[in-house]
């Protein structure tokens, strides 16, 4: 079957999709967006977390056919998504992304081999700065989940962070640096850094 939907603001079309394929598979294998990760494919690890019409979901559990006409944001589009949110003056952070907003921006590629100089979302920068990235396989899903939590709850208590990220497994860090990163991003956000 054929599926049309919007990914990171860009209209996409996938052809010859097998009906049992997940959104995750289509993103990774058909649209060249492997940033969302395939760690468990059963909704237990959160590594494939994307936003579907603004809502964080496990893309491995969304059938490809279910995203027809809908909006998806992946880690590849997170920096632009956050930038647009900031420019939208959404101080409360509660406004999410409208259909129109989502369609107006486009993911930017990075031409540097190192990625240095790439514009990052605050949560992405905080993950690097706090040492929250080791193998990095859980990182894309955690970033999408953490960014959405900070959008809803700009000043989370530690227990709020833990609850919001309890669907994202990490095997390397012991989560301490991930906690640090989210606290750092929240602090920078509140200071307007």
């Amino acid at each position, binding site marked *: 079957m054929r599926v049309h939907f919007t990914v990171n603001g860009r209209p996409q079309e996938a052809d010859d999709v*097998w009906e049992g394929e997940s959104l995750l598979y289509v993103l*990774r*294998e058909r649209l*060249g*967006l*492997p*940033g*969302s*990760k*395939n*760690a*468990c*494919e*059963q909704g*237990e*690890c959160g*590594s494939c977390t994307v936003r579907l019409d603004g809502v964080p979901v496990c893309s491995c559990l969304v059938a490809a056919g279910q995203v027809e006409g809908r909006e998806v944001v992946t*880690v*590849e589009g*997170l*920096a632009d998504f956050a930038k647009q949110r900031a420019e939208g003056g959404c101080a409360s952070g509660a406004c999410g992304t409208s259909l129109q907003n989502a369609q107006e921006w486009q993911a930017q590629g*990075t031409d540097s*081999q*190192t*990625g*240095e100089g*790439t514009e*990052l979302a605050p949560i992405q*920068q905080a*993950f*690097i*700065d706090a*040492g929250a*990235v*080791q*193998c*990095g*396989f*859980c*990182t*894309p899903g955690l970033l999408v989940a953490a960014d959405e939590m900070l959008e809803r709850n700009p000043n989370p208590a530690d*227990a709020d*962070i*833990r*609850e919001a*990220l*309890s*669907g*994202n*497994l*990490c*095997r*390397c*860090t*012991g*989560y*301490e*640096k*991930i*906690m640090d990163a989210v606290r750092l991003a929240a602090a920078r956000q509140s200071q307007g850094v």
Partner: protein
Amino acid sequence: MAANGAPTKITQGSRTKGGIGESTLRPDGTLKVTGEFAYSSDMWHEDMLWGQILRSTVAHAEIVSIDTSEALAMPGVHAVLTYDDLPTDVKNYGLEIQDTPVLAHGKVRHHGEPVAIVAADHPETARRAAAKIKVDYRELPVITDEASATAPDAILVHEGRDDHHAGHVPHPNIVHRQPIVRGDVASARERADVIVEGEYTFGMQDQAFLGPESGLAVPEEDGGVHLYIATQWLHSDLRQIAPVLGLPEDKVRMTLSGVGGAFGGREDLSMQIHACLLALRTGKPVKIVYNRFESFFGHVHRHPAKLHYEHGATRDGKLTHMKCRIVLDGGAYASASPAVVGNASSLSVGPYVIDDVDIEAIALYTNNPPCGAMRGFGAVQACFAYEAQMDKLAAELGMDPVEFRQLNAMEQGTIMPTGQPVDSPAPVAELLRRVKAMPMPPERQWESSEGADVRQLPGGLSNTTHGEGVVRGVGYAVGIKNVGFSEGFDDYSTAKVRMEVVGGEPVVTVHTAMAEVGQGGVTVHAQIARTELGVTQVTINPADTQVGSAGSTSASRQTYVTGGAVKNACELVREKVLEIGRRKFGSYHPAWATAELLLEGGKVVTDGGEVLAGLVDVLEGETVEVEEEWRHRPTEPFDLRTGQGNGHVQYSFAAHRAVVEVDTELGLVKVIELACAQDVGKALNPLSVLGQIQGGTTQGLGVAVMEEIVVDPKTAKVRNPSFTDYLIPTILDTPTIPVDVLELADEHAPYGLRGIGEAPTLSSTPAVLAAIRAATGLELNRTPVRPEHLTGTQLSEG
């Protein structure tokens, strides 16, 4: 066409000196947070096919027949291969003993063993085709434990063994046996005022790295193959792959793709040979990606173990002797079992002074899942048991458990049971002192003005208690782990370092085959290059087999050994650069000949700080490059009868204090805090050090309270191969992990560093167990602890 997702070099600058001792950031960090970093499962190639493995549905059986005709006839299927299709006489592989069939031959020995492989144009086609392969099994009785393995009429898991351990083991179903005897246990036992015994059980833990086994094999025009792969050791893979393919090693190019964690689980081959076979057979690139279910069958696990210990002590708290017997279940294939036996036996005494010991460790061949390397490697199981013994002894003697440990703690100069002196700092008592001195977390943190915050209580979000039945407990543990490969293994690494001027600036390129699995080796290599060569820009080349072996990313060894190799190569580059400088500028300044010269800030300077020349001027179009192997001090094998020998090169120590709250009625546990003190010798990157300690601590927590692969003892089949039923800690299960880092240099190691990755995994588990014992008063001789064990409901009804 090149494979999409092939790794490229990463260049990282630094605004600071960016050398060792600084918490410089990961050079691959930006790529990882943007989703650009390509893991092995992200590899993609036009026209690529998908590989699928058919695995045995039973644990032990003769294969009567395999019929692939229906599968081959399916549209979209390009190849179906079985044992009969293997191209050469080499049909087995293995790390130390080549006992593992690439595809099953006449027999399967464990649940999930590869029987046939398929390549098709879509993963679903490949799955459907695999499902159409008909395999007729004639089931055999299963061997699942020591009794069934060594019974007089036991079926041999491997008949006709001719490996180098076959001659000395007491039974062919024992992979390896290592005794260690020292002193006179019988007379030491006479001196003991108290003797405690214990029988301990350690469950089967899985590495549960998040990035599943995966890779892409691309056939090359010269008849060879290029494999993009996530592994811990490229050259070890290569040595096992090439003979099976019938190719010389230089026709099997291997490039490290992004690795989604490893923890020992990628030390053995998984899909490497299968992908290459299918690529060579079809002439097309073949990608294989395990899903989580298959991943549980696709790699070895931590050896489950039964441990019997006896310790004695005098009334004043001095250990008199120790006897132990450690039985590790190696499962169907040897993997790293022999080395795990060496570790379990040689480290079974723990970080304590005991002169009189009688130790035996064995690994079994059974029909259970194969077991091999996992973080802590044989030392983990022993630490769980001897630390329980220490608490029992302290209780018996009425002593404080920490003081009792300190009284018996080893130190530099202590003689190990193997006869080897500990020749670098061993601050065991100090680590215990530090971890005990850390402030305690406040009581009843779950209480708030709005009632109980269940997120901070046992049971968490499941709302099982609002404080009822909750009791706090505190426990301590300390452990000892060897660093590097031991027992006479030629443990070396290779580094190629180049210095040149690029864009008017001196740049150093570091090329090694080190597998970056998340630990931060690439970060440290750039730091070492900056420190040794005085540049800011460092390029890290992708790891591949175009450079010599780096050894494995395991045994806490990469910063030591490949770090050492990079340091060594940098020093050789520096000498060459200085030679060029002397040649060009020596006549202008006498210091070129007389002073100690350094490279700093892009310049050649004297040790007095005087600038002699800029590196740009010295190099001026020249490129200096060195590739060199580097080794740590040699070790010796353990004597097969006495266990004597200088088997290890370095030890690593960590201590933990666990604070837990237990819902004693429901048997649910919340770990409140896991404080750690560890000696790291020298923290090359303090931020990464903390990450290693906290991550290792959490894996130890997992196996204390939830992680276990459950194997049915009647069928030897795995009962929980999924993340739904093999649980690893979430962020809500993981406590704060304050860390106190001690830096006592080991004069034998580069920069005085000590391997750090594994020690925290050792002591974390027994500390949590001790805390649960303190909260419940239960004996708890097995890990993981399940709610059943805390509520006396482990037996079936009726």
